[in-house]
C-alpha cells in the first residue's frame, strides 16, 4: 500500500503549486491525527501496533482527506474528519478489512453535511490571485482563522468550477457563458485539470503495476462519462461535457484512489465493474441534479451500501457448474 502513497505524490505537488502550501499543512495535520487515532484505537482494542501502523492504509485515508479539504480550511475540520474516518469509519467496524464504508469518504461526508460552508470554500488557482499567500500566512489562516487583508471573502467563495456551474445555471446562464469565466481552462478548471491529470498518471502507474485492477476505475469513468455524454447531447446549454466532468472535482481521485479501496468494494471482477459504474453514474446525478457541487463522497458511500446486493448477483460461474 506504500506504492499507492508514492503514486499520489506527483498530484500532491501539482495541487500545492496551484492551490498553495495549505495542502502541506492539511496533510501534516491529517497524517498526525491518523497515526494518533490508529495507535490509540489499537491500544484500546488490545491489538498489536506495528503491522497496522506500518501498512500505510491509515496514511492513505489521511492523504485522501487532506487532498479533498479546502486549502485554508480551519485546522479542526481536517482533524475531526480524519478522527471520524479512523475511529468510527474503520475501528468501530473491526479495523482493517472489516469496514463497510470507505473511511475517508465517511469522514468527508460527515463534515460536508455538518459544515457545508467551510467545506466548500475553495481557493482559485494561485496565479489568478492578486497576491499569493506565504506559508506563514496560510498557517495563520488555518490555525487562527484570520485572513490577510489582500484576500477577501469574496474571492474565497464559489471558486470551484463545479460550484461555478451550479450557481451559473441557477442564474440562467448557459454552460457556454459560464465557461468564459476565468477559472475555466481548456479541459476543466484552471489548476484542477492539472491535478486531475497528475492523479490519472499515478493511477495508470498503479494499473501497470497491477496494484489496482481495471474494473473499478473503468467503471467509474465510464459510468460518469456515459451519463455526461447523454445529458450533454440532450442539452449542451444546460449540461457540461464529458471531458469537463472527467477532469473536474474528485473524479480522477475517485476512479483510481478512492473507489479502488478493495475492502469496501464488491468482490468479483464483474461485481467491481458494476460497482464502479454505479459510483460514476451516481456522481453525475448528484453533480447535475443534487444540491452538492461534487457527488463523489455520497456516490461511494451509497455504492458501499449496495455491495452485498451486487455480490449476490455477480458470483462468477465456477468451473464445472453450468450456467
Amino acid at each position, binding site marked *: 500500500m506504500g506504492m499507492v502513497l508514492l503514486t499520489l505524490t506527483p498530484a500532491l505537488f501539482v495541487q500545492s503549486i496551484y492551490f498553495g502550501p495549505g495542502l502541506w499543512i492539511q496533510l501534516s495535520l491529517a497524517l498526525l491525527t491518523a497515526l494518533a487515532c490508529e495507535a490509540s484505537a489499537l491500544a484500546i482494542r488490545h491489538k498489536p501496533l506495528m*503491522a497496522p501502523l506500518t*501498512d500505510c*492504509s491509515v496514511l492513505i485515508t489521511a492523504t485522501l482527506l487532506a487532498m479533498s479539504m479546502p486549502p485554508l480550511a480551519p485546522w479542526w475540520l481536517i482533524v475531526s474528519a480524519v478522527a471520524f474516518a479512523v475511529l468510527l469509519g474503520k475501528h468501530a467496524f473491526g*479495523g*482493517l*478489512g*472489516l469496514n463497510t464504508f470507505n473511511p475517508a469518504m465517511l469522514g468527508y461526508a460527515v463534515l460536508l453535511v455538518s459544515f457545508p460552508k467551510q467545506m466548500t470554500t475553495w481557493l482559485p488557482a494561485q496565479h489568478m490571485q492578486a497576491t499569493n499567500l506565504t506559508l506563514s500566512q496560510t498557517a495563520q489562516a488555518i490555525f487562527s482563522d484570520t485572513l490577510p487583508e489582500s484576500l477577501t471573502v469574496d474571492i474565497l467563495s464559489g471558486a470551484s468550477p463545479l460550484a461555478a456551474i451550479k450557481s451559473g445555471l441557477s442564474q440562467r446562464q448557459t454552460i457556454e457563458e459560464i465557461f468564459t469565466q476565468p477559472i475555466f481552462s481548456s479541459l476543466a478548471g484552471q489548476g484542477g485539470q492539472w491535478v486531475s491529470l497528475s492523479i490519472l498518471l499515478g493511477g495508470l502507474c498503479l494499473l501497470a503495476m497491477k496494484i489496482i*485492477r481495471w474494473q473499478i476505475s473503468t467503471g467509474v469513468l465510464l459510468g460518469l462519462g456515459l451519463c455526461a455524454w447523454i445529458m450533454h447531447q440532450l442539452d449542451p446549454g444546460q449540461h457540461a461535457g464529458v471531458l469537463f466532468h472527467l477532469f473536474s472535482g474528485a473524479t480522477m481521485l475517485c476512479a483510481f484512489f478512492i473507489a479502488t479501496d*478493495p*475492502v469496501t*468494494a464488491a*468482490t*468479483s*471482477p464483474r461485481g*467491481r465493474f458494476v460497482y464502479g459504474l454505479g459510483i460514476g453514474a451516481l456522481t453525475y446525478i448528484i453533480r447535475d441534479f443534487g444540491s452538492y457541487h461534487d457527488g463523489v463522497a455520497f456516490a461511494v458511500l451509497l455504492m458501499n451500501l449496495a455491495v452485498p446486493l451486487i*455480490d449476490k448477483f455477480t*458470483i*462468477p*460461474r*465456477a*468451473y*464445472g*457448474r*453450468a450456467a
Partner: protein
Amino acid sequence: MSVAHYQGLDIPNHKERTRAQPISTIPSPPQFILPLNQHRGSTLIPCVNTGERVHKEQVIASPKNPLEANLHSPVSGTIIAIEPRPSAASISNETLSIVLANDFQDSSVPTMACLNWSALDSHQLCEQLAKGGIVGLGGASFSLARKLAAHPDHNINQLIINGVECEPFITCDDQLMREHAMEIIHGIQIIQLATKATHVTIAIESNKPEAIYAIQEALHSLNNLDIALRIIESTYPSGDEGQLITKVTGLELPSGKLPAEIGVIVSNVSTIYACSRWILHSEPLISRIVTVTGQCISNPGNYLVQIGTPIEHILQHCGATLTSKQKLIIGGAMMGQTLPHSNFPLTKAINCIILSDDRELKTETVEQPCIRCGECAQACPAQLLPQLLLTYSKQGNSDALTELGLYDCIECGNCDYLCPSNIQLATRFRAAKRKT
C-alpha cells in the same frame, strides 16, 4: 473470464536442482513402516501376523473390495509389530501400520505373472491391477482399478496420460519419461485395453523438451499412430485433472462428477509405468520415484525409493537432517503439506520431499487481515471466490460454503501464493472440506 480461457499462474518452478538428474536407488533401510491407509478408500486389512517372516513382494495387507489395491512387502524380513504409527495421510492421529525388519536377503517367491494380458477382459485386467497394488501415483493415490472400473456403462472416448507435472520442485515424472518412455507406451496400451478408450493423448508441459522428445521417439519406433502427443503451455496448475481435461478435450468436468462420467480417464505417467512393470514384468508396486530437493538437501535428485522407507532415512541418504529452522514438505510446495518431524514413512502417494529454509519458500507466516483485494479470485482456476469462502469457513457456515463451491476447490494453492496478507486459504479450505 470464461473457464476455458483461464490462463494459470506463471510461478517460479524451482526444478533446476533435480532436472536431468538420473534416477538412482536409495538403499533399503533396516526397518520399514507400512501404513494401512496407503490410498483413498477403505483401510487395508493385514494378512500377516507379528513375528511372521515375509518374502519380498509378498502381499501383506489386502482390501475388502477386490478393486482396491493390495500392499506388498518391499523386502524380505520379519513383521515386528502391527501398531499405530505416524502417517502423512493423517498427520493429526496415528495410523495402524505394519512394521517390518529387513533381513537384507531380498528372498522372494516368484509372483504370478499375467503372461497373456491381452486376452483378459477389462474387468479381469482391473482386478489384476488391484492385485499389483497399483494406485494413482500423481498425488491423489486413488486405486487405479477402481477408477477404471468405476463406470462400466460409460464409453470412454478419451484416455489422457498426465505427464504435465506443473507443481514446482518436482521432476520425477519428467525423468521417468526421459528414461522409460518405451515402458510408458507399453503401459498405455494396457490401460487402453482396460478402458476401451478410442482416443489416447499424452499431455506434457512445454518446459520438458527432453521428455517430449523421448516419448516422440518411442512412439515413432513403435510406429504407433494411435497415441497423440499434446504439449501443454507451462503454467500452474495446468496438470490438474479438470484443467487438463478442458485443455485436451474442450469439455468441462461437471461439479461433483468423475471424469469417466463424461467419457474421460486421466492417469499419471508414473501410474502407467507401474502398470507396465506389474503386468509385463510381474513387479508389484513396492517402490516409486521420488524427487528429493530443496535448499537444505546436499544431494538433490530423483530417487527410486521403496514404499515404507522412513523419510528420515531418505534425508540421511541425501545428505540432510531436519533442524528446527527448516521446513519439511511432502508433495510439492503448492499442494503439499508440511510435516512436523521426519518420523514418517514414504507412502505410495508421496512424489516429492522438500527440505528448505526460509529463503526459498513463501515464509511469512503471520497472517494479516484480508483486505478483500480479490487477487485470489483472479487466480482461482475453479473460478471461486476464495475471500468469501474464507469468511464463511471462519463462521463455520457449511451451507454457504457448499453453495459457493467449496467442494469445487482443487486445493491448488494459487490463493495462498498470491495473498498479500499471507492468509492460508487453501489450507483452511482443505480443513473445512473434512469438517463438513
